[in-house]
């Protein structure tokens, strides 16, 4: 009946197949849109980079993403249960590889066994990393435990960071540098991820040498030396997937018989009701925040306003909130970082190769979601129906990869490690590498007459940082600008220990702009850094789990 018994999967092809199914869980398919390793809901919406979008009541399934932007997540929330279940699904598949390997048939060479084990442990490390930063205390299940052998008795009373490190170390030691298939994890992805794991634990001295190696010698699985692509937007272009900037990515594919293989978790994240002049036309989710838009304001020298003054007075980015598409509107003329218009769709600026963003007409409920549209991870008109999947209810299933780690991220993480080690100048160099790429004026958004679409100004940090704090402020802000909307911000704020002040400041600003979405919301320190352990799992495992504080 089209099913297999596990003893039919001991061949090389069988083991590869089990491993692939573990890769397949990277995008959280079959669970919620908030399950994906992209984390657009938790990382970016909870991080204040965007609101849920759409209109107030449109939740995205039998869930309610607005609880993520208001920090009102209850243990019964379905999305957090899906995050839990989705990540453990990936783990169970990785464990299935490790469990089957000892009985591998003769056609599996020792080298294959080593590699399969290393890839499986890399993926397991990834899924546990996701669980760790989402829930903090979670039960650790390895391949020795399965259904019927005590798996449900494992408590969440041990910090699993050491286990995650072990998996990435094993992967680093046993994975090849390059592999035939571009989507596979390689040695350098494992090294970068191990360094990231150290960074999350503030083990900067352990992280720094690993970043040094990655920057000096790292290469992609398909053999390209790590680097920044010349055009920032190529990072978000399906046709340019697996570039030299891609350290480890979720591979998205379309027209494969199931939209689960596409960037399926982003299917709602397009401007609304665009007709054939815009992409997909649905559903207006993931609307960038006013606060994020303002952050792209730069001073005359093209440097960001690190003092936070971008949220006050004329520094605020001019927008078309409350203005009809028929009424005249001139976009902001002040100096802005060019990454603004690669990251945020706004009225008056060309929206990729579709048309000039018309404002309100593409917004579903401005009073709830604000005037902005998502722009990264939106496909081009030229790719419509070739790099999108039309077999389901919306056209919004694209083939754009999401980079779980990209090289710009590596540089900025390395800069943090360098700053902690006291080498501010090395850090400044890394930050400037990222800024230099953004300064490539050829790639800036242009109007139809070839002129820059806005007053783009960007320059490098030309003078040494005055202090470690200044350096930290610069690198943290650079992460916000460079990686906005990519699901990192919330986790960054938490690991930096500044989530409560930053997010409460964000709420007090944003709730003036969008009272319907934000008024009354509050971030509670000591509680909202982590999800609660899902109530369903507490119940299913009969109270062996300790609930997170505050819930």
């Amino acid at each position: 009946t089209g099913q297999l018994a596990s003893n039919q999967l001991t061949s090389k092809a069988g083991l590869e197949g089990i491993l692939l199914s573990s890769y397949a869980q990277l995008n959280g398919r079959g669970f919620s849109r908030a399950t994906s390793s992209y984390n657009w809901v938790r990382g970016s919406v909870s991080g204040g980079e965007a609101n849920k979008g759409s209109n107030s009541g449109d939740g995205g399934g039998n869930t309610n993403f607005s609880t993520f932007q208001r920090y009102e997540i209850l243990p019964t929330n379905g999305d957090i249960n899906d995050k839990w279940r989705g990540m453990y699904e990936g783990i169970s598949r990785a464990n299935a590889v490790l469990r089957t390997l000892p009985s591998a048939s003769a056609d599996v060479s020792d080298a294959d066994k080593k590699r399969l084990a290393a890839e499986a442990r890399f993926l397991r490390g990834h899924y546990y990393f996701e669980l760790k930063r989402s829930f903090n205390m979670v039960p650790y299940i390895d391949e020795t435990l399965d259904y019927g052998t005590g798996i449900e008795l494992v408590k969440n009373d041990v910090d699993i960071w050491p286990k995650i490190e072990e998996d990435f170390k094993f992967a680093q030691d046993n994975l090849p540098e390059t592999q035939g298939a571009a989507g596979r994890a390689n040695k350098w992805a494992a090294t970068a991820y191990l360094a990231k794991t150290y960074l999350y634990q503030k083990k900067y001295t352990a992280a720094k040498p690993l970043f040094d190696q990655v920057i000096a010698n790292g290469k992609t699985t398909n053999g390209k030396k790590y680097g920044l692509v010349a055009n920032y937007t190529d990072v978000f272009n399906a046709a340019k997937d697996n570039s030299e900037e891609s350290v480890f990515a979720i591979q998205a594919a379309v027209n494969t018989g199931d939209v689960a293989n596409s960037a399926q978790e982003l299917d709602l994240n397009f401007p609304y009701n665009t007709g054939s002049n815009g992409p997909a036309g649905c559903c207006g989710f993931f609307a960038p925040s006013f606060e994020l838009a303002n952050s792209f304001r730069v001073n005359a020298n093209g440097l960001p306003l690190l003092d936070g003054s971008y949220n006050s007075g004329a520094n605020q980015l001019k927008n078309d909130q409350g203005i009809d598409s028929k009424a005249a509107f001139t976009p902001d003329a002040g100096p802005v970082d060019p990454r603004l218009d690669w990251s945020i769709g706004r009225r008056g600026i060309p929206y990729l190769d579709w048309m000039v963003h018309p404002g309100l007409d593409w917004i579903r409920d401005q009073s709830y979601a604000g005037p902005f549209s998502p722009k990264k991870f939106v496909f081009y008109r030229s790719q419509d129906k070739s790099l999108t999947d039309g077999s389901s209810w919306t056209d919004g299933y694209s083939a754009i990869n999401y980079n779980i780690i990209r090289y710009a991220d590596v540089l900025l993480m390395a800069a943090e490690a360098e700053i902690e080690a006291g080498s501010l100048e090395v850090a400044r160099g890394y930050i400037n590498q990222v800024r230099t790429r953004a300064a490539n004026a050829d790639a800036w958004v242009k109007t139809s007459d070839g002129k820059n679409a806005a007053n783009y100004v960007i320059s490098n940090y030309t003078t040494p940082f005055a202090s470690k704090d200044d350096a930290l402020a610069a690198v943290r802000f650079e992460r916000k600008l460079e990686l906005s909307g990519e699901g990192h911000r919330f986790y960054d704020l938490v690991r930096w220990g500044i989530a409560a002040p930053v997010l409460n400041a964000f709420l007090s600003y944003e709730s003036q702009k969008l009272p319907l979405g934000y008024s009354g919301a509050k971030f509670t320190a000591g509680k909202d850094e982590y999800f609660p352990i899902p109530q369903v799992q507490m119940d299913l495992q009969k109270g062996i789990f300790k609930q997170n504080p505050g819930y």
Partner: protein
Amino acid sequence: QDRRLTGKITGVDGPVPGANVVLKGTQTGTATDADGNYALNIRGASPVLVISAIGFKTLEVAVGNRTSVDVKLEDDATALSEVVVTGYSTENRRDVTGAVSTVKPAQLKVVPSTNVEQQLQGRVAGVTVITNGQPGTTSQVRVRGFGSFGGNQPLYVVDGVPTQSIQYIAPDDIESTTVLKDAASASVYGARAASGVIVLTTKKGQRRAQKLSISYDGLYGVTDPGHGQKILTPQEQADWTWQARKNDIFQAGGTVGPTSFTGIANGQYGSGQTPVLPDYLLVGNQTGVSASAVNLEAERAKYNINPANGAIYNVIPANKAGTDWYGAITRVAPLMRHTLGFSGGTESSRFYLSLGMQKQAGIITYNDFSRYTLRVNTEFDITKKLRFGENVQLAYVSATGLQGSTGSTLGNGTNNNSSVAADENDILLAFRQAPIIPVYNAFGGYAGTAASGFNNARNPVANRIGAKDNINYNLIAFGNAYLEYDVIPALTLRSSLGGTYFSNYNNAYNRSQYENSENNTNYVYNESSNVGLAWTFTNTAQYKQKFGIHDVSVLAGIEALNTGSGRGISGSGLNPFTTDPNYVTIGTTTPGATRSVNSYYGKGNNFYSLFAQARYTFNDKYILTGVVRRDGSSQFGSQNRYGVFPAVSAAWRLSSEDFMKNLPWVSDLKVRGGYGLMGNSNYLSSTNQYNLFGSNAGNSYDITGANTSVQAGYYRSQIGNAAAKWETSITSNVGIDGAFFNNKLEVVLDFWQKDTKDLLYPLALPGVVGVRANAPYVNVASMRNKGIDLLITTRGNVVGDLGYEVTAVGSILDNKITAIAPSVPYFTANGQRLSSPVVRNQPGHDLSSFYGYNVIGLFNSKAEVDGAPTQPGAAPGRFRYQDINGDGKIDDADRTFLGSPIPKFTGSLTLTLKYKGFDLNTQVYASLGNKIFNNSKWYTDFYPSFPGAAVSQRVKDSWLPTHTDTKVPIFENTSNFSTNTESNSYYVENGSYGRMQYLTLGYTFPASVLNRANLSRLRLSLSATNLFTITKYSGLDPAVGGSADQNFGIDIGNYPVTRGYNVGLSFGF
């Protein structure tokens, strides 16, 4: 020595078709044909015929040495003496010790529905039929409650062959319907009987030399869709949109200013202090345009709805009068049914052949059902003792334009669940699409929410028309062939081989859309088909003999069957060169990666069974029956494969005792009781015992980064449980059958209880295990159903020739889950769009109970909010929830049970009046004590659900600071815990209803007229169905189905049962 006996059975109104003529003390018997004629081989020294027919008094006639016996039956005979067909055997109602109900075929036929399942509603005490008005839908028939979390459909046995659906049976072919409700009567079917057994037999011919008799039954009628829900007019909706903004400002503590109304509804109503309806909703990319700004002829040149010709340019005028979207997708729907029957026979053979057709249009456009049937039943004597017969039905059943999942077809599943009520379908869209949007744009194309400001409903008319060429049909061959051999007169051996061959074909053209805000701009073509075969091989021996005052009947049998093995294939593709349906095939869609194909197969479940039944009757007073069946199923691992299901029952006929003889008003009185076990494995897949890995497109991965292809992944798809065993129901039943006052009053009363133990439940897997694997089904849960079934019939003459018969059928049902699993306190099911689950299945509560927050009122002021327990999002005009646990805050621990979708009482009252040739029939059906979760209110009662979509008239009664005496919450643009995101009691409504199911007036022409026309029968009838419904339910119709058995009674887009009118004609010659 056998000899031939013929005759004619008549009643007051002429010939009695279908009367049972049995040689007393044997099982030799026959039934009369359409003209009341019979022929029978008789034997013995002093043969006596027992003649019984529904609606007539049973008569015993000594034959003597006559060769022809004509009998006139007395009317008003008691139903307690009818013959009951139980599939493996036939019994006289007098001898029945279990809980058995029958339905007269005439009662079934009066309901003009497409399938027999729907016709059973309200007919049998203890049978619940959950259905809706969609022709071709699958109904949930439940006998005596819900014994399991799935697979509760009864076993159907048609002419001795078990089957899972009776969708393909033409109602006019049915001769008898018997419902076996308790273990005493049903456990002869053992493991498959736990949910009751419905036994149908089809019409037979007569074994005697005769001329061909022909009968015709016809029905013509229409169904009226009635009216939709009450929706705000365009002006009212605009006004309330403004009011929502005012309410937002009120909640924020602000004041209305000159710019307060900017940006609402994308500017369609302007931004002034009062909204203004626009003349045009969309002109190209301009919204909210006045007529003076539009030059229609200039726009016609720019108009384009074909994306191949460039960007879409739609021109949509406003329909200020308001579009009746429900009216636009419904129609007065015609139906007709014709059945032509031929029956006849010779001294050694008999046959019945019928041709039937039914065409029924749904009240929703392009929802059509048709069924064409051919039935051939024959029997031949090979020798005097050896007979060969067959019953075969061929059917073509087509149901197109169906909404919702319609349940499994034959063989490919075990759970006949449909869920049209729970889907976001075109009926819901008709209540969500704003009335200001017209159906068509200015130039004849479609209009829709592409005109921004009205959110995301799709044009339901376009959806319906887009589905008009879709094809869906089943071809079914069903039947059996058998040999019967009379070893001695009292002992008959029978061997029957039966089966079902089924094939399904369907295709669907999904148009590319341009008129909506959310369009799928691809044209998607799907096509699929499947075939399968189920078979049953049954061998029985039956012995019936009377020794003086001792009457013995023994049945033993052996049966093997397969529930259906089959294969299927499906494919899809996108964007063919032209969308002409005559052109489109999978092969003409765009070649390459966008085409996909799938196939599958299933092996079905094998059963092997031994069974025996024995009955002993002493002196017509004491009856003792024992049944035992041993079943084995391939669904189970070897250690638990077999289950044994015994039952015993006994009856005492008090009326045969001497001390009762001096109570002349007691015509017949029998007390009976039974106890026994029945099994069930319907809920279990055929592979439950195995650990499995699977592979499919959705679990593959693009590891090479190719962007348009994937490599297969293998994931654990099932964790098996080799130790699973049979679910067992333990049933006990105590009842009385009584007839009083010379049979003027009959009472059948049963008290019953059914405890299902070892209930199979898919153990919820802890997340750490990896939940993409199907959980093993484990025997952990239990459920209890108990109830009372009552049937009362009284009949007589009011005056002179005016006769009446009144039948009341009632059943009380109490369902409780008694255990789920040690580790599973409950499990839930979701409605649509709500953050918290709507249904909670929990021990101590009814199956599929609604769960959520209990609304105790609306907050009337800020002070009231401050004084109340802390509740997220609380504000004036919003829901105030009950603090169930009294801890001073409202959180998910404060949810509670809000009601059950299971009616506590269902019943009907049927009245028949007869005056000479006229008869008047009517039935009132009542379903009481259940709740409905009206999920559709989420869409129509709350502004922020989808702002701009249509709004219910209920909102006019919504909370305002100046209007606080209401239950409808404030209309505002805030979606949170205290407004619309949670499952709460606002959605839960009383689902009780009473409905006049039909009123039929018939006239049967008298024999004197018929003889002149050479007719044997002629009847005309007029009827109206679903004349009125009494209910407090605010949705379209309180008959809300759903996915029994875990998740039903949730109304999102329920297909209503509406009024119809029919004319019937039948004649025979």
